[in-house]
């Protein structure tokens, strides 16, 4: 015993204690920086994400009106013909189709047949998701209601109800979930006919109908398709349907309108993280796959959540890009802040998210907007605007009320973008783009502690924003990754 005591000694014990204490301190520091685990799977958000009473950007004024519902495809086509003459749109599409075919034949990296079909495969679920039908049905389809199960519908405190719905949404695949109050001004005026299922072929898959892929996609969804064929307007008269609010008990889709019951005062706003490894390969068919997969995940999540809510005894309307503006609901629900991209940037996934939402009459506690220093960061950074090949993003120091085209909704402050230029660039690449999403310094993986530390520091010390932007460049973030390497990358052991 005496020998052991001599061997260990007080000094050694002190050293060991010091080492243990230092490790503990290091661990604590880590937890503090990371905000107690702010990874995608964690429920509690980092401490540097402050809850605020009003959105930092995007708050609406009395001038804010319901948006027409026209997607950028429709607007671009109209403007293209106005600016460059009738038939210029068709000519551009034909040229794009030829170019894409040539790239495919010469196996251009990012545009080969497997690259292209990877995107089409990823879009499969979304192909069958049209507003008001199938996955996105506005009324009960499969689930048995509590009434049918001879049990009262689920009731609890608003906080508990919100927790229940958020837990379910996360299980189905949501990265971030928040509850916002219904704001009728965010709901589109109508559902364009191109976003609706065709009457003669209500729920069939696009490939079975020989329908061009772009026609099947919801508004705001790009396609690497064969747009030369995408001319449904020429064969079908417009059948836009109005979206109206009425004092009814259940949502309805009629021949002329989509009816949202006024009692639906809750919106579950959801962000679906996109695959960063694919997004970093934009603008190619591979980069497109990140968006396609995001849309399919979105459709699955909102469809599943709507069924879950109906099963609890309430009404639910699942929406992806359709029916309403997702961004303002997501801002109000505290999922992220409006950025220089004029899109949502979240603290956890940056701009690499797809948004979707579920309207419901299930009473839940509302979330509040957040402030993590993004607007101040955007004022200094401008990396997305510099990275944008079409110069569609604003370089202004301050956001303003000045819109840049019919695709923008006036009545709120923002860094408005030129979607015409943006979409024009899509025609050159033959796919969607996404460079701005990938280049945002907030769009990062969740492996390295330094990302959390930088975001945490930027949230409290805007003076460091310029340094962090410079560091982001120096570390080589936001650049397009090797296109061919994606197919040979070892994915064994990777989840999902």
């Amino acid at each position, binding site marked *: 015993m005496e020998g052991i005591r001599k061997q260990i000694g007080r000094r050694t014990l002190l050293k060991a204690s010091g080492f243990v204490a*230092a490790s503990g301190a290091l661990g604590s*520091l880590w937890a503090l920086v990371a905000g107690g685990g702010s990874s995608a799977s964690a429920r509690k958000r980092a401490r540097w994400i402050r809850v605020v009473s009003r959105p930092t950007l995007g708050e609406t004024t009395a001038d804010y009106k319901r948006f027409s519902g026209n997607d950028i495809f429709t607007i671009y086509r109209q403007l293209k013909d106005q600016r460059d003459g009738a038939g210029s749109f068709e000519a551009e599409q034909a040229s794009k189709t030829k170019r894409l075919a040539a790239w495919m034949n010469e196996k251009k990296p990012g545009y080969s047949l497997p690259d292209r079909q990877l995107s089409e495969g990823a879009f499969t679920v979304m192909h069958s998701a049209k507003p008001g039908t199938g996955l996105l049905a506005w009324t009960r389809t499969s689930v048995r209601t509590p009434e049918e199960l001879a049990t009262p519908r689920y009731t609890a405190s608003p906080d508990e109800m919100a927790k229940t719905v958020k837990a379910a949404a996360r299980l189905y695949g949501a990265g971030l979930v928040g509850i916002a109050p219904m704001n009728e001004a965010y709901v589109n005026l109508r559902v364009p006919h191109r976003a609706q299922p065709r009457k003669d072929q209500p729920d069939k898959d696009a490939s079975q109908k020989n329908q061009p892929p772009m026609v099947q996609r919801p508004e705001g969804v790009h396609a690497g398709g064969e747009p030369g064929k995408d001319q449904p307007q020429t064969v079908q008269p417009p059948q836009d349907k109005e979206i109206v609010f009425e004092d009814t008990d259940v949502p309805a889709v009629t021949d002329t309108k989509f009816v949202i019951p006024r009692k639906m005062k809750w919106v579950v706003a959801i962000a679906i993280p996109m695959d*960063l490894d694919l997004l970093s390969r934009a603008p190619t068919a591979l980069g497109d796959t990140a968006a396609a997969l995001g849309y399919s995940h979105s459709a699955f999540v909102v469809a599943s959540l709507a069924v879950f809510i109906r099963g609890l005894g309430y009404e639910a309307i699942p929406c992806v890009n359709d029916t309403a503006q997702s961004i303002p609901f997501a801002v109000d629900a505290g999922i992220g802040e409006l950025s220089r991209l004029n899109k949502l940037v979240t603290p956890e996934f940056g701009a690499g998210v797809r948004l979707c939402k579920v309207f419901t009459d299930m009473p839940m506690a509302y979330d509040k907007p957040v402030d993590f220093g993004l607007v101040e960061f955007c004022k200094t950074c401008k990396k997305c605007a510099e990275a944008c090949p079409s110069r569609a993003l604003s370089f202004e120091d301050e956001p303003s009320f000045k819109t840049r085209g019919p695709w923008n909704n006036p009545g709120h402050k923002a860094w408005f973008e030129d979607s015409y230029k943006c979409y024009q660039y899509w025609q050159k690449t033959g796919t969607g783009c996404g460079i701005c999403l990938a280049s945002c310094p907030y769009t*990062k993986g969740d*492996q*390295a*502690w330094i990302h959390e530390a930088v975001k945490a520091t930027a949230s409290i010390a805007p003076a460091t924003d310029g340094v962090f932007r410079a560091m982001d460049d120096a*570390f080589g*973030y936001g650049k397009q990754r090797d296109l061919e390497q994606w197919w040979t990358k070892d994915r064994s052991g990777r989840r999902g």
Partner: protein
Amino acid sequence: MTNATDVFTITIRRRPWWFWGLAGLWLLLVVLILQTAFASVRESEYRAATISWIATAVLVGIGVFAWLCRGRSRRLNASSDRF
């Protein structure tokens, strides 16, 4: 060779508080930058990983250099004490 009559004096000095502070900071930086390096490889951010590896190597080098310098000065002090 030493004689039985030789007298040696061993001076034990406490390291100043700032030494421990610097050593702790050094260790913390090495751990954090090393984590960044490994994480950057996992995130396929190869340039960030390279920079982190280099930063780790430089930090470890500085630590080793400081340790060697301190060892040298200790030996020199011991020599000067002897003479």
